[in-house]
């Protein structure tokens, strides 16, 4: 059973330690906010000037508080607000502990491509290069292959780079993979997925971790759907 977008977000939420300061990108990373355990304190950062936000309850939206995904957000106790200069000083100065981003391609060396496809529409970079080049732990949340089944974890990126050697860990619908000095290390597989299947859908060679395990994602979290209201 491969993971859904919600399953991937749940798995990443479990990985973030108590006391971390984390930027969540658009797409699957943005779903992580819904799965953070109340047992730990994780301050979420938003590029437009928030440290410490959470999903907002219906009817409690403040028109003056929105996150970088243009969603109404709630401020948590201990939150702070600031301008773009300070916000990106937190990023460039490596004060944030983690950035969770989407990916189009990740290479065996941890190079990341996630901002442009040449010849396709209007390009946009947002804060992706700032985050990838400067945050110490860059987690990538993505499907293991493209819609047409092409591997997204590759020997070397063919799409324009966001930053070189920046990714530390990859979370997909099939696996969790560490990026190490010695290449990619497969540390977890989704329930019912074999290491061989993961390798067959990965262009770059994978080394099996000695403690390779099956991902722990309760089925009820994997089956979630987002509701609009």
């Amino acid at each position: 059973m491969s993971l859904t977008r919600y399953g991937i977000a749940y798995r990443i939420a479990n990985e973030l330690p108590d006391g971390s300061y984390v930027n969540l990108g658009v797409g699957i990373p943005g779903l992580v906010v819904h799965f953070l355990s109340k047992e730990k304190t994780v301050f979420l950062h938003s590029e437009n000037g928030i440290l410490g936000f959470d999903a907002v309850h219906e009817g409690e939206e403040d028109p003056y508080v929105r996150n970088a995904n243009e969603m109404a957000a709630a401020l948590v106790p201990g939150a702070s607000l600031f301008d773009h200069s300070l916000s990106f000083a937190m990023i460039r100065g490596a004060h944030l502990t983690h950035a969770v981003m989407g990916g189009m391609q990740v290479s065996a060396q941890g190079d990341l491509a996630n901002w442009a496809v040449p010849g396709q529409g209007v390009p946009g970079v947002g804060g992706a290069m700032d985050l990838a080049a400067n945050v110490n732990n860059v987690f990538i949340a993505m499907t293991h292959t493209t819609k047409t089944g092409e591997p997204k974890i590759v020997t070397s990126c063919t799409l324009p780079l966001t930053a070189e050697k920046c990714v530390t860990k990859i979370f997909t619908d099939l696996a969790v993979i560490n990026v190490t000095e010695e290449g990619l290390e497969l540390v977890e597989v989704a329930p019912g997925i074999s290491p061989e299947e993961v390798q067959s859908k990965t262009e770059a060679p994978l080394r099996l971790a000695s403690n390779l395990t099956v991902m722990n994602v309760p089925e009820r979290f994997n089956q979630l759907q987002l509701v609009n209201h």
Partner: protein
Amino acid sequence: MNKTFHSYDEVVADVFDGAVIAVGGFFGNYNDTPFHVLEALRRKGVSNLTIINNGAGSGDQGLGGLIKDGLVRKVICSFPNTPHAWAFRERYQAQEIELELVPQGTLAERLRAAGAGLGGFYTRTGVNTLLAQGKEVREIDGKKYLFEKALPADFALIKAQKADPAGNLVYRGTMRNFNLVMAMAAEVVVAEVEEIVPLGDLSPEEVHTPGIFVDRVILTAPVPESHMFNQKGNRQVKL
């Protein structure tokens, strides 16, 4: 000294053809952007403008309206590809508008550098990417950095919640974003605000943008519902 103005047309009267204009707000479509000042600029009909913003406008009013009307020659921004930026998308695909794509943090810092009297700065952001083309690379303590030039503007059109007649500004919630660095970076700074209070009513400790950076203050008015994109846009997971 009283920096209060009473006419939107008056605060943009000296904007000239070819001016470089920094427009505050995250995507130019909400209460963090100076909607009525932008509409006055559109009425004035200046052309060949260079616009600095995080995005490239939304819909066909405000910044999106300037682009739709063909008044903008070039946009310097980080994220022009939002769904609502259709005016820009059409002009870009027709090759009628120039785009200088800048990483978001680099954009903020280039503005700040201009406002702080710096020629530029070195950053690791963008090293060995397409956006590094033509830029100096320097190794500092074993790491590669790109040189990014300061980005000054002729005008900044920004938004704040409160102002006093001395031009001191206070923001609310996430309104601050680019407005602070844009106020620093421009020759002439116009702030559209929700409230103007008498001199002395703002606590010096609450001022976010000191009045030295601001030239003109004008009271805002309600913004058309049609321009308030994504105001709901909130989604939740049912656990």
